[in-house]
């Protein structure tokens, strides 16, 4: 019997899988980036089905919003075109795609076969969660029990910001207006 929950799960899963396969099939990076956004939006729907409302919102805002905008800006900045095929990547296609299919089928078979049919049901209808997974509860847990990892994370973000600024800034000789330094080889 198909419940509405299962139907929604299958719909979001189909979108996510189509996006993931399209990411592999496309040769232009901007098309891959857009299909990755579709995957992330579909995953936000799955998080909603699992009762994780705050995670779903953060997924859309941070992943599909901030990180993917960074990717799209980089693609446009570098004017990335269609990727060239080379010999090594053809070998990877011949070996990699059957390997991926084999691994996926094996993992799926093990998971479906060796999990009981009772007590494995998950999924809560949004609105019936009794406050589980809403921002207040998540925030309380994050700022009490996980306060130290949270603070360490802020240091990580600071280091990442400084690293990005240093790495992406122009070399000092060209920035000062002097002749560009020969960096090749």
């Amino acid at each position: 019997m198909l419940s509405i929950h299962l139907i929604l799960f299958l719909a979001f899963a189909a979108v996510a899988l189509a996006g993931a396969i399209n990411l592999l099939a496309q040769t232009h990076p901007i098309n891959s980036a857009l299909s990755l956004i579709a995957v992330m939006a579909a995953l936000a729907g799955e998080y909603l089905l699992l009762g994780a409302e705050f995670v779903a919102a953060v997924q859309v805002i941070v992943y599909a919003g901030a990180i993917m905008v960074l990717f799209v800006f980089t693609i446009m900045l570098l004017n990335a075109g269609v990727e060239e095929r080379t010999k090594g990547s053809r070998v990877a296609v011949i070996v990699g795609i059957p390997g991926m299919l084999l691994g996926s089928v094996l993992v799926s078979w093990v998971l479906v076969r060796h999990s009981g049919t009772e007590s494995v049901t998950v999924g809560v209808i949004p609105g019936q969660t009794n406050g589980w997974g809403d921002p207040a509860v998540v925030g309380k847990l994050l700022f009490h029990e996980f306060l130290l990892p949270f603070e360490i994370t802020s240091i990580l973000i600071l280091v990442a910001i400084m690293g990005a600024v240093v790495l992406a800034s122009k070399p000092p000789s060209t920035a000062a207006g002097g002749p560009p330094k020969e960096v090749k080889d």
Partner: protein
Amino acid sequence: MVPLSYYLVLSGILFACGVTGFLIKRNIITIFMSIELMLNGVNLSFVAFAAHWHALAGQIFVFFVMVVAAAESAVGLAIIIAVYRTRETLNVDQVNLLKL
């Protein structure tokens, strides 16, 4: 209600797609996006287990994964820009200075 294994299968397939993209793609930006796809697959299994065991810590870990992914993509894209500035290519096969 959806069995937990369905979510895990979806998560595993997304991770496998990410690994495949990492291996077969030659564009350095697309390789980077495949890493993000792998992280998303792991996040889905975190949230599914959190819902299964009613353990909210799983959702907290998703936030940490997202923060690390954001930091990683900021630094990684800066490295890509630096690579493009010096080598003027995005093809990883042409970035082979360390190869014998």
